[in-house]
């Protein structure tokens, strides 16, 4: 008798456990949440975590007759490709997740790409890394989607930014970037864009970890460029902008990644500070109800009075909106398991959240962004751009 009860109990437990497993959609996320390059992954994690908790607290989401909840599995890659590879294997093989957000970093993507490609068709990888662009639409990479605007091309933000710079009368720009995987891609992207615009581009690379930029700034200034195009992380931007303005070597800056804060800190020594920003949250908070609501919810969720205005624009990639967009796509596809159908649904919709996001035919995100132009003293004008 005791044995029969045990067998029935085990069968019941297995049924309940299996039913529970079917009702949870696991979402993997591989981003750097600590370390010098954490700026990019940190906000993605904050936003994804918030969206998933909101969806679960609202009772989950319905696909067909079933209600699903979500579970976020988000280890910290620390920008280390080897760590990220092990984490991705665990997410796919042990956690059995079919949807993975990230990475934002090109070096991490390069490290996981061969393994991810071996698993083509089994999952979707939705990351912001620049290196993803070149892989989109190539054979055996149906799993790949890029969640960030592309720099080049007719509607690329880099192209639009260089056009804006040209309108300011710039003829020669000096680019000073960290010597790493992303920079190699960035130099390849921007060299032809500047050339096509009839503008000269000087390039100087520096060792990761550099804090004193006196030598490269003096070297670049000798070429008399009219704008400085400095780095891509705030960790170096603060120092470059400060040292360039303090010594009077540069007064005009042009950024395609990074925040406004380094410019605002030195606003009295700067003539022009032009930056690509997915969203200028300080202004959007006043004019866009959805942004205001997000900021309020963020403060309540993370129990803080300080909203990270500097990092919030990076929520444009693999973050809050993308979780909701994925849920909409699952509903439209009528499945949470068939990744090909979910991808097709993602490609067919425009999600209207903090950003208006859609995917082009290659699987690359296209969304609206701001061009910010700060003039001496700190006055900022924001121009909203809607790529075609």
């Amino acid at each position, binding site marked *: 008798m005791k044995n029969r009860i045990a067998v029935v109990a085990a069968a019941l437990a297995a049924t309940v456990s299996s039913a529970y497993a079917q009702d949870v959609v696991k979402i993997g996320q591989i981003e750097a949440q600590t370390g010098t390059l954490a700026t990019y992954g940190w906000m993605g994690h904050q936003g994804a975590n918030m969206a998933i908790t909101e969806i679960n607290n609202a009772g989950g989401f319905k696909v067909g007759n079933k209600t699903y909840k979500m579970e976020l599995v988000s280890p910290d890659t620390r920008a280390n490709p080897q760590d990220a590879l092990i984490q991705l294997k665990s997410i796919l093989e042990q956690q059995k997740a079919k949807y993975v957000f990230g990475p934002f970093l090109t070096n991490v993507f390069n490290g996981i790409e061969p393994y991810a490609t071996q698993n083509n068709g089994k999952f979707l990888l939705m990351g912001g890394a620049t290196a993803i662009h070149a892989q989109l639409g190539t054979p055996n990479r149906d799993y790949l989607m890029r969640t960030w605007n592309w720099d080049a091309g007719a509607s690329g933000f880099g192209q639009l930014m260089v056009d804006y710079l040209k309108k300011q009368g710039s003829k020669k720009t000096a680019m000073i970037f960290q010597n790493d995987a992303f920079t190699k891609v960035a130099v390849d992207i921007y060299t032809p864009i500047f050339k096509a615009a009839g503008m000269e581009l000087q390039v100087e690379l520096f060792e990761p970890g550099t804090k*004193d930029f006196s030598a*490269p700034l003096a070297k670049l200034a000798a070429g008399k460029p009219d704008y400085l195009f400095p780095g891509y992380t705030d960790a170096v931007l603060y120092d470059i902008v400060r040292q360039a303005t303090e010594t009077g070597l540069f007064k005009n800056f042009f950024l395609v990644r990074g925040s406004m804060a380094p410019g605002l800190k030195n606003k009295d020594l700067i003539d022009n500070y032009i930056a690509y920003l997915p969203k200028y949250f300080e202004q959007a908070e006043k004019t866009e109800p959805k942004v205001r609501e997000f900021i309020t919810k963020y403060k309540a969720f993370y129990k803080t009075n300080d909203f990270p205005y500097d990092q919030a624009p990076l929520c444009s990639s693999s973050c809050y909106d993308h979780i909701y967009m994925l849920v909409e796509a699952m509903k439209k596809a009528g499945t949470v398991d068939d990744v090909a159908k979910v991808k097709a649904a993602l490609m067919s919709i425009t999600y209207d959240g903090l950003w208006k996001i859609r995917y082009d035919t290659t699987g690359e995100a296209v969304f609206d962004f701001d061009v910010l132009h700060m003039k001496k003293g700190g006055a900022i004008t924001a121009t909203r751009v809607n790529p075609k």
Partner: protein
Amino acid sequence: MGQLIFGQLLNGAIIGTLYGIIALGVTLTFGITGIVNFALGVFMMLGAYAAWYFTDTAGLPYPIAVLCAVGVTALAGLVADQALFRFTRNNLVNGLLVSIGMIAVLEATALLIFTATPKELHRVMPGVIQFMGFVLPKMKLTVFLVLLAVIFGTYAALTRTWIGRAAYAYAQNPEAAELMGVRTARLQTGVVVYSTALAGLGGALYASLYSLEPTLGSLFVLKAVEAAILAGIGSVIGSLFGGVILGVTEGVGSIYLPLAFRDVYGLVFLVAILLFMPAGLFAGRK
């Protein structure tokens, strides 16, 4: 070009004194406790964040904030010594393991508290000095002079005071020093605390020049160890010159060669010196 080279000579010397102050801590700790304390980098980070906090958040004048930061770092050094380092005396491997563990824990804690967004102190001393066509921020020159004073002051204290001579005696022959009345346990703790205070001072001054992030000390401590080896471990003045040589090599090397390999120039120089002078440039001149 002449201006550029002169500028980088001067700038390299200034950066070099920052390497030198940490190298001094490395060399003192090694001489007295027998361990290479890589955790001095996180004490530098602690000093930098403390100076930023006391100045920008607590609103103290910068010089007072620097003193407070040095005090906080020294206190942290004392706690670390009594809780951890005193169990690793003269055991290079254990000391290394403890210091690496401390780096991981303290950097992660700093990241949790201060986040990845860089912190930047307001300009403590704005303005520049123009000298022979080269522009030098006033604050950089001030940091240089303060660090020089501290390094030479340490040298004077070590050579002209009883406690300094006791430290030298201990470094040469611990047993003999103990027999002569040197309280070795207290001396070792004192040196560890002083070294962390030096790292804290380096960090507090660093905060007036560069933005802060939790990993700032890691690179500096590597350069400091490099400078200490270049000079010859144990040489007080040598640690200053080791740092300056490294700073100047990097600065001037970056003019003629790609900056992307800046760290390599110092290392190549180090290897070249060690090939001909295996004990370092200032070995024997303690």
